[in-house]
């Protein structure tokens, strides 16, 4: 199966570099994972003053999206149980606008009924929606699915906009149902200001993720509060993969080192420590890419350090690690050296890297490892 290569990181970074944050997830939606996705999104919202007012609304809408993914997953019959909870989720903040996109599989034969419901919801005014909500609550028997109709009505009511949706064929039996909600921090009405990020683009990202077997992409802040939910999401996925304890811990360790490296060493612009992180799978291994800006003057040293590591064998790496451990210098900056050495000892690939010069001050570095 194809996996992401080193250029995939810049492909995404280039497209989402203007975003304050962007979180993409393509995979299984257990309760634990949806909770962590919401926690991370809420953390991201709390960190952005212009968004804090919409935190409650955004959380509600995210939860509603997840319910759609999981609930529709449950009705799929045993034959296709492999991707029963498979889905796609995106949250993104660009200036004062917050986007929530979700995608889940539905049986292709059910599209026409869902479309009918979506069109009905989209044709109603605010008051009519409220009335419909009441009618459904009072009169309609709650279906086995738990009344997806109510979910759609609530999404339209809470977001105050027409539901933006799209269907794409998945295989001969299933299709992806995508849905995007756009929240704005100001009271601009949605009619006179069309979303700048189209649902079509989100679907492009998802397709790229599926094609490259990518599980999570996170662009944004790499402080501890942002790192922990990401780690938890990966741990949950490792659990599902039935990886042995040794591999699980190894991957966890590599992730911690790489993510903390970004937070300690990236180029700080407007007080923001930013980077991008991607994790995917290939042939039973995990592929981890990180990307961040660095000052041009640090490029040569980092290159030298990585080239040295890539030319050492296991025994030599261990000796270098122990030498660094014994060095008396305890500054945080020196931690990176030892972190990368320890990573190099535990991966099956070299520490691949690529550096792209952005301007006279900074460059973008991608690190790619397979473990």
């Amino acid at each position, binding site marked *: 199966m194809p996996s992401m290569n080193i250029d995939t990181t810049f492909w995404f970074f280039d497209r989402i570099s203007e975003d304050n944050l962007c979180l993409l997830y393509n995979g299984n939606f257990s309760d634990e994972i949806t909770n962590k996705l919401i926690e991370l999104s809420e953390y991201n919202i709390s960190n952005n003053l212009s968004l804090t007012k919409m935190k409650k609304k955004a959380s509600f809408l995210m939860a509603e999206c997840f319910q759609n993914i999981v609930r529709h997953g449950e009705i799929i019959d045993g034959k296709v149980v492999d991707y029963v909870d498979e889905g796609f989720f995106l949250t993104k903040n660009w200036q004062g606008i917050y986007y929530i996109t979700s995608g889940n599989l539905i049986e292709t034969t059910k599209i026409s009924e869902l479309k009918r419901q979506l069109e009905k919801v989209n044709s109603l005014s605010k008051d009519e929606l409220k009335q419909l909500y009441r009618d459904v609550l009072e009169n309609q028997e709650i279906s086995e699915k738990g009344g997806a109709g109510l979910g759609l009505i609530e999404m339209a009511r809470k977001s105050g906009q027409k539901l933006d949706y799209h269907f794409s064929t998945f295989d001969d039996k299933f299709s992806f149902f995508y849905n995007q909600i756009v929240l704005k921090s100001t009271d601009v009405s949605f009619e006179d200001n069309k979303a700048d990020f189209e649902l079509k683009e989100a679907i492009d990202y998802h397709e790229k993720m599926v094609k490259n077997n990518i599980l999570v992409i996170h662009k944004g802040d790499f402080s501890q509060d942002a790192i922990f939910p990401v780690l938890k999401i990966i741990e949950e996925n490792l659990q599902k993969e039935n990886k042995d*304890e*040794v591999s699980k811990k190894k991957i966890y360790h590599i992730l*911690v080192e790489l993510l903390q490296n970004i937070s300690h060493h990236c180029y700080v612009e407007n007080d923001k420590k930013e980077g991008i992180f991607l994790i995917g799978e290939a042939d039973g291994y995990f592929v981890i890419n990180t990307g961040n800006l660095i000052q041009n003057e640090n490029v040569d040293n980092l290159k030298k350090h990585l080239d040295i590591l890539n030319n050492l064998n296991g025994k030599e790496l261990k000796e270098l690690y122990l030498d660094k451990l*014994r060095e008396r210098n305890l500054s*945080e900056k020196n*931690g990176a050296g*030892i*972190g990368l050495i*320890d990573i190099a000892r535990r991966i099956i690939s070299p520490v691949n890297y690529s550096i792209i010069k952005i301007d006279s001050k900074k460059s973008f570095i991608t690190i790619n490892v397979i473990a």
Partner: protein
Amino acid sequence: MLTKLEIEGTRDTAYILFDKENNLFEIKGNSLPENTNKFFEPIFDWIEHYLQDPNTDTNLKCDLEYFNSSSAKMIYQIFIEFEKILEHGNDVSISWYFESGDALIEEKGMEYKTILNIPFNLIEK
């Protein structure tokens, strides 16, 4: 008497107990602090005082689930400080615990053992 140092563990910082009076010394849990220097600073301060008059037999119990590489350096420095107790003619040792099958923590312990002069026991839980 040097007052005890006890720090509650969190998701990213270890539980710390350095208690001269009851002769208890323990580092336990996870260590991947956002700011490693800041977290370990009070520990080094405490050890500096302790070294002036250490107990006759000091055993430091390390029972770590996970620690990152910048913590690895700090932990090494703690061991180096404890080694100084030998110069007083007093006994000192490290007990390094690891979960059965936890290759990472076991390996880290073995590495410390090879580069330290302090009695170092690896204990499988």
